[in-house]
């Protein structure tokens, strides 16, 4: 049964045997290219602002620091990530389901809106006409931001919402046309969860940004800052959770693609995704923990009781992905001791390297600091310090961005149908990028713990800080140089592969280090992921120690007598 009379054209992927709708493929390509352009602009801004915060270099004057901070935040957090996610949604709804895109024209409309919106923001930000940073807090925008800045963000959000609608329509149509059997595959399921969160996110974004836009063109006089913050953060926070869900979906995909095997319990993994759907947006309140006017109940319910259920979801994924790899490896016969399976993983395969580093940096640095800072009392000393960017660079750069980078290396042969060039660079890139961004994050976190504020070009004017702060900020600068180098390596591989060389059909999934197929499980056999269990226990102990250490530090900050 087909729903519309339109016909789609397909090719069949020689490696995966998936049917690929050519219109969908074209949309994946343009969205991915737009994402990489945004990453390039944001990356250039990144190194310039990082070298400003490294006081020994102190590169930019304050005016340019703030201008480029705005460019960096919008390009990275909004344009790079969201364009890439759009590519991911087309991939998950069509290729993974053998389905066609119902109305490709809608996809092109969405892309057009997003590009125009992004251009408005780029132009106003780079020319210094919207130096309000990506949060654009009211009433800061009063005379600072041009209407085009808000209009650009609104167009971008509406475009993305249209693409999300098309995603849902594609999934429904695939079901009606029976292009797949049974339930949605887990990766697509994760992307559905991302799209569910995206719907709320993008609607909130529109609600938040329309009033300031109307103010800048003179239709209304005043926007309430507290109301703005409420709606802004039901855009800004869930936007990160779209990343989270998409990243986890990509983790599962890359695990299966580079190591093989299948999730140890589909039920458990899906349940973990449902926990995101239900609770993760409540965490938005952690951005408002120091705001006046909000009750204690509102703050603690949303940031603790509600949010921890979503954190539980992440813990489940953090267990089930390594467990999936371990079971696959043990079936292959790597059964010696607790960790032979771990040593024999394909560490030279770019996608696996990206998966491993991304999970580590995301969980051990990003996750642990995030849950800690999201505690109301601890946030009193963490809020608006460099600790906050330290946390989210581990999460959204070391975690999400690196996962997306790793995935690109497979999009090149499978979707762009080009040979990946400079494979050595691709193998090393995830490790170098992970190292650099971890140094950036740890430098920022330790500087923040010592009282260094975020978003300042020059800390000397702000307050007295201990001398060790200079060391922390130097670590940020050095980490930034390493991360920037790795970013350039990524761009070199991607640009050289996509834009030069002839079209070739891929012949295998693995780029560098193919693995033997996983032998089928013997009837009734059970392989226990013991090594993963040990890793998880060590992680929990580290988490608890870090969390308690923060309470101890808090106790040393304020002496109550």
């Amino acid at each position, binding site marked *: 049964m087909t729903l519309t009379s339109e016909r789609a054209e397909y090719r069949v992927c020689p490696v995966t045997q998936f049917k690929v709708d050519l219109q969908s493929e074209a949309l994946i390509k343009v969205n991915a290219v737009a994402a990489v352009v945004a990453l390039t602009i944001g990356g250039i801004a990144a190194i310039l602002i990082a070298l400003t915060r490294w006081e020994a270099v102190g590169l930019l004057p304050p005016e340019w620091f703030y201008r480029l901070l705005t460019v960096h935040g919008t390009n990275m957090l909004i344009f790079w990530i969201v364009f890439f996610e759009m590519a991911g949604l087309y991939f998950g709804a069509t290729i993974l389901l053998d389905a066609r895109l119902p109305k490709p024209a809608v996809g092109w409309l969405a892309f057009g809106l997003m590009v125009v919106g992004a251009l408005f923001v780029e132009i106003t930000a780079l020319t210094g006409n919207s130096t309000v940073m990506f949060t654009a807090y009211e009433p800061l925008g009063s005379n600072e931001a041009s209407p085009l800045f808000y209009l650009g963000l609104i167009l971008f959000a509406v475009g993305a919402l249209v693409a999300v609608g098309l995603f849902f329509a594609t999934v429904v149509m695939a079901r009606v046309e029976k292009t797949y059997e*049974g339930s949605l595959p887990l990766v697509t399921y994760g992307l*559905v969860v991302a799209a569910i969160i995206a719907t709320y996110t993008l609607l909130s974004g529109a609600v938040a940004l329309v009033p300031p836009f109307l103010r800048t063109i003179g239709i209304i006089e005043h926007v309430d800052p507290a109301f703005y913050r409420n709606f802004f953060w039901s855009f800004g926070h*869930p936007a990160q959770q779209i990343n989270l869900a998409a990243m986890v979906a990509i983790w599962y995909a890359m695990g299966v693609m580079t190591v093989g095997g299948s999730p140890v319990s589909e039920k458990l993994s899906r349940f973990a995704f449902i926990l995101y759907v239900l609770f993760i947006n409540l965490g938005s309140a952690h951005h408002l923990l120091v705001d006046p*006017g909000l009750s204690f109940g509102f703050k603690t319910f*949303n940031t603790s009781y509600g949010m921890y259920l979503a954190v539980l979801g992440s813990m489940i994924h953090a267990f089930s992905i390594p467990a999936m790899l371990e079971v696959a490896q043990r079936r292959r016969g790597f059964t010696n001791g607790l960790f032979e399976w771990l040593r024999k993983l394909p560490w030279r395969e770019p996608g696996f390297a990206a998966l491993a580093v991304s999970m580590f940096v995301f969980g051990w640095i990003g996750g642990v600091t995030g849950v800690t800072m999201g505690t109301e009392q601890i946030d009193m000393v963490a809020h608006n310090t460099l600790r906050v960017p330290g946390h989210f660079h581990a999460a959204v750069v070391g975690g999400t961005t690196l996962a997306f980078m790793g995935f690109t290396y497979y999009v090149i042969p499978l979707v762009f149908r080009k040979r990946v060039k400079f494979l050595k660079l691709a193998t090393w890139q995830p490790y170098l990028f992970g190292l650099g961004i971890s140094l950036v994050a740890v430098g920022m976190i330790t500087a923040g713990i010592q009282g260094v504020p975020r978003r300042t070009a020059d800390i000397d004017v702000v307050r007295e800080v201990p001398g060790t702060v200079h060391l922390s900020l130097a670590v940020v600068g050095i980490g930034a140089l390493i991360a920037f180098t790795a970013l350039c390596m990524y761009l070199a591989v991607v640009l050289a592969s996509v834009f030069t060389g002839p079209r070739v059909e891929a012949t295998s999934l693995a780029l560098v280090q193919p693995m033997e197929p996983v032998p089928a499980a013997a009837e009734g056999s059970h392989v226990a992921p013991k090594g993963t269990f040990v890793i998880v226990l060590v992680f929990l102990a580290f988490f608890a120690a870090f969390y308690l250490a923060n309470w101890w530090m808090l106790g040393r900050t304020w002496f109550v007598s």
Partner: protein
Amino acid sequence: MDDEKVEEERRIPVGQIVFDEIFLWLLISIVISVAFYNVWGLFDLMRTPPAP
């Protein structure tokens, strides 16, 4: 619905059927987020007296 289909649906566990209802989850997700975060937060703000 023909018999074959009824049979097929009977074999799917209830949990799986519930998990597959993606639009139900979309609805629940938005309701929870709007109620606990947006409405509660805005309600708190509206009860806050303006600064003198």
